[in-house]
């Protein structure tokens, strides 16, 4: 693979996690526990969608370099099947109750913040630029999700039990965030991507400190699921995409 192909795939990994999580958060519209949360959560979804668009726009330009023409943002978002998606398994997991949504968000936000901080030093100026912009939004995301993990964990017996179940159930999807493959290694070697394994220790330190403050036990399971970043997904992604892509699939090229 040429390095442009690798870069294209890497940009999809960045974009797809943002897009899929944005869609999941969007599913809360009109269903939030209170009006204020409904607005806050979908704001975060929109932040992520905006970031996904920036990555897609760049991916499209990179694709044009080796494929002659790059697909549009819409084509990349709405006309790929689940096997073409490169997002983390974590973000495609269903919303569940509010504890599950917040645990998923918290695990992702802590990682996302560390990743973007590392990418601001990328030798690819465009990646560094997008990361710098996204970093500010994500600093708020992690503050909010950590806050909710602590509130629910250290809340009532019911909220504590639900929060513990949520952090335990999603734990198995966190290992994938730090597992690099050849594509990551090549791009990291060129100073374009970041070394994912280096994010593991600071991620764990933050997660442990928040879970402890939340009076929650840090999960100990060592088995980790993998596959999202090479297109092997859980059953949930396909179902989500049928809803997300329905309009473009039924009415190709439809516009507002």
């Amino acid at each position, binding site marked *: 693979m040429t390095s442009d192909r690798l870069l294209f795939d890497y940009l999809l990994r960045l974009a797809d996690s943002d897009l899929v999580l944005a869609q999941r958060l969007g599913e809360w519209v009109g269903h939030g*526990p*209170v*009006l*204020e*949360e409904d*607005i*806050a959560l979908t*704001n975060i979804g929109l932040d992520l969608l905006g970031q996904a668009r920036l990555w897609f726009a760049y991916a499209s330009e990179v694709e044009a370099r080796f494929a002659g023409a790059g697909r549009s943002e819409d084509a990349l978002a709405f006309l790929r099947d689940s096997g073409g998606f490169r997002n983390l398994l974590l973000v495609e997991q269903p919303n569940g109750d509010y504890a599950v949504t917040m645990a998923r968000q918290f695990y992702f936000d802590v990682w996302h913040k560390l990743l973007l901080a590392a990418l601001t030093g990328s030798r690819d100026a465009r990646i560094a630029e997008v990361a710098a912009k996204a970093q500010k939004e994500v600093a*708020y995301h992690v*503050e*909010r999700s950590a*806050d909710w993990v602590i*509130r629910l964990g250290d809340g009532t017996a019911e909220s504590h039990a639900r929060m513990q179940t949520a952090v335990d159930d999603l734990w198995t999807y966190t290992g994938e965030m730090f597992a690099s493959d050849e594509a990551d290694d090549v791009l990291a070697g060129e100073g374009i991507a970041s070394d994912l394994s280096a994010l593991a220790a600071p991620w764990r330190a933050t997660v442990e400190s928040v879970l402890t403050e939340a009076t929650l036990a840090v999960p100990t399971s060592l088995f980790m699921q993998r596959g999202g970043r090479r297109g092997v997904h859980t059953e949930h992604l396909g179902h989500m995409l049928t809803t997300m892509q329905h309009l473009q699939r039924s009415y190709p090229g439809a516009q507002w």
Partner: protein
Amino acid sequence: MNEWPLWEIFIRSQHGLAHKHVGSLHAPDAEMAIKNARDVYTRRNEGVSIWVVKSSEITATAPSEKQALFEPANSKVYRHPTFFPMPEEVKHI
């Protein structure tokens, strides 16, 4: 969630201007009220500073006191600084 108290939200739009009441929302505590206010009331770049005050902490005038409190000021036009001749050279007053 109905037991969450109501908070009044004040936002300062630019440096040098006073905080202005923009509305209210529910939140379990002050910290969360600030976060919710950020998401509900500053989405379009409205603010540089947020105050939150529990609605129950506000003491208000009663509508029934309106006459006694405000009407006496109606008949005292001399309290408005409109009776002083202004020198021509002075602008912007």
